[in-house]
């Protein structure tokens, strides 16, 4: 073999590097910089996009209201008579119909569309004499709080005027004042909210953790302190390692094939439920909990176990009095990481719970989590990006808080052990 050596002229460059080396160096540094910048810019773009599109939709109403709109059809009775009433209103603003005794206001629904809300309906308003179903019915209606007008047909001088929520409050009031008869009015509760999905997510977190933490912590204690080094524990360990590498959609399959039929058999539910979802998530997360807990147990000084035993404590006493309290920061970290994953998980839950957005949540009924809610919104004929972004903001904020929490816990933990 021929060995070719090139020695650079030491007087040419101060740092003794050849032109080629210098060029390579610059190239490496530049590419690192460019790629980091690219990542950063993309990340910032995504976050800015999400906040720009989502913040207008995000409101307390969005978080607490139902997804489904509930509409009611109202009519003025055929024998309605107008007398000389005056109306008192307590609220300011909006448009007042002095004839009917209602105060309407322009606003937006959770999809960002213009709608006309009832701001106030006076106690003696003619609206409280409207009836449900048909103009010959007798059941009156008087709960207009937070509802908006989705359709309105009025008779004005033998003409029929049809209005919808897209018309402004002043137009509607204007026509109302000219009319003596509401031929048909459809009012709606505000839909598109995420209350149901938020509740489902909270239930999922609680139930998953209630099952996964005791199982995971016990398994970690067994593996770290009791398990003998034999084939069985080796296989167990590699299985646990493997589960953390399996893509979540496969867990979704497992959920659909195993846990949904199982829960259907046990609880008589029909299809995916919060419980089948929680069981699937448990299987998914347990490896993380076992590994993090085991690592924090192993990281403890080995002398703790020995010296506790040498003081006449039993193994169980040592585990509960010394090992677990000191491994607690690790356990808490794993719990927080798990919560983050539950909130962000979508692929597995699409199969293991389902995608139907619900407002009445029960543990055995179908509903869906926030992340899958986003997926469902984007799958609509007119994908609702604003609402999806609003949910993303919520998820991002929760994850951010959880991250900060883990940092704080590990910081305090390190501080506590610094002088050991």
């Amino acid at each position, binding site marked *: 073999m021929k060995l070719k050596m090139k020695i650079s002229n030491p007087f040419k460059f101060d740092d003794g590097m050849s032109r080629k080396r210098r060029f390579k160096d610059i190239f490496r540094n530049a590419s690192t910089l460019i790629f980091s910048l690219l990542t950063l810019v993309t990340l910032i773009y995504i976050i800015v996009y999400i906040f720009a599109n989502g913040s207008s939709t995000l409101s307390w109403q969005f978080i607490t209201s139902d997804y489904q709109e509930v509409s009611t059809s109202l009519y003025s009775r055929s024998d309605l008579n107008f007398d000389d009433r005056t109306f008192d209103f307590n609220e300011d603003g909006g448009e007042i119909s002095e004839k009917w005794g209602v105060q309407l206001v322009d606003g937006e629904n959770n999809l960002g569309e213009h709608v006309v809300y009832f701001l106030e309906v006076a106690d003696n308003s003619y609206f409280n004499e409207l009836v449900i179903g048909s103009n010959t019915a007798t059941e009156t209606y008087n709960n207009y709080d937070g509802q908006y007008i989705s359709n309105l047909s009025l008779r004005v001088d033998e003409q029929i005027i049809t209005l919808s929520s897209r018309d402004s409050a002043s137009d509607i009031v204007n026509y109302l004042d000219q009319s003596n008869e509401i031929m048909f009015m459809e009012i709606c509760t505000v839909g598109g909210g995420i209350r149901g999905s938020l509740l489902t997510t909270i239930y999922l977190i609680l139930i998953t953790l209630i099952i996964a933490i005791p199982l995971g912590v016990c398994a970690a204690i067994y593996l770290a302190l009791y398990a*003998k*080094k034999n084939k069985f524990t080796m296989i167990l360990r590699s299985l646990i390692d493997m589960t953390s590498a399996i893509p979540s959609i496969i867990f979704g399959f497992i959920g659909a094939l195993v846990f949904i039929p199982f829960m259907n058999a046990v609880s008589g539910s029909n299809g995916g439920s919060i419980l089948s979802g929680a069981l699937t998530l448990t299987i998914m997360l347990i490896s993380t909990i076992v590994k993090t807990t085991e690592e924090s147990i192993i990281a403890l000084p080995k002398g703790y176990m020995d*010296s506790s035993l*040498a003081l006449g*404590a*039993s193994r169980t006493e040592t585990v509960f*009095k010394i090992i677990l309290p000191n491994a607690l920061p690790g356990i808490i970290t794993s719990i927080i990481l798990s919560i983050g994953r539950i909130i962000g998980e979508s692929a597995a839950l699409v199969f293991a719970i389902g995608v139907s957005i619900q407002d009445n949540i029960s543990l055995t009924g179908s509903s869906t989590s926030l992340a899958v809610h986003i997926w469902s919104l984007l799958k609509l004929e007119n994908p609702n990006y604003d609402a999806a972004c609003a949910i993303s903001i919520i998820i991002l904020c929760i994850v951010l808080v959880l991250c900060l929490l883990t940092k704080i816990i590990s910081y305090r933990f390190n501080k506590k052990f610094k002088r*050991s």
Partner: protein
Amino acid sequence: MEENQVVFSVKNLNLYYGDKKALNNISLDIYKNKVTAFIGPSGCGKSTFLRCFNRMNDLIENCKVEGEILLNGKNILEVNPIYLRTKVGMVFQQPNPFPMSIYNNVIYGLKCQGIKNKKELMEICIDSLEKSALINEVKERLKDNALALSGGQQQRLCIARCIALSPEVILMDEPTSALDPIATSKIEELIRELKKDYTIIIVTHNMQQATRISDYTAFFMLGDLVEYNKTEEFFAHPQDKRSDDYISGKFS
């Protein structure tokens, strides 16, 4: 040997780690209120032997013990190991107080015994700290975290923790090897003090230390007990060639 009460009597002890024999047919007696030092080159089985006395070897998976050890005439295999370990305390090479308050460290063993009376616990705590010559340094801060103590103080705390259980014997495995000379001399002084009340077995690498504090010395090599004698006689007139070589530093 002069009239001495035997605490531990070891008879034909063999110990295996798997197939490997770590202790070879050892027989010796440990005397009451004396300090017995185990010396020998690294890996000769001193720690292994020491751990036999409070059955800490039970916890090692592939460790098998043959022969018998009698504590006051009773085979320790017939004693509940948890009870045995309260009667035979142990101090380790690394000072390893638990990350809790000084007070809780001292009473840890008692609490495991089920003693709950606060007054009694506090009395024993103070008494143990007095006996381990730590009380003056910590009496103002019993509720402070024990990890804030210096290495030497931590080791004396470990001794206090042991004493709190009022054991008969205290086993010490190189208790001063992680400490500086001043802390070491404090511990040595403490050991001389403690032997009035307790029987002490100490593993040490330091032959000066053995001569300073021990009454009896056992010299081990490759799992064999080579020589066991009064410390003065052992160092003045070693009977075995190997002891002589070791003392004169021919190998270590």
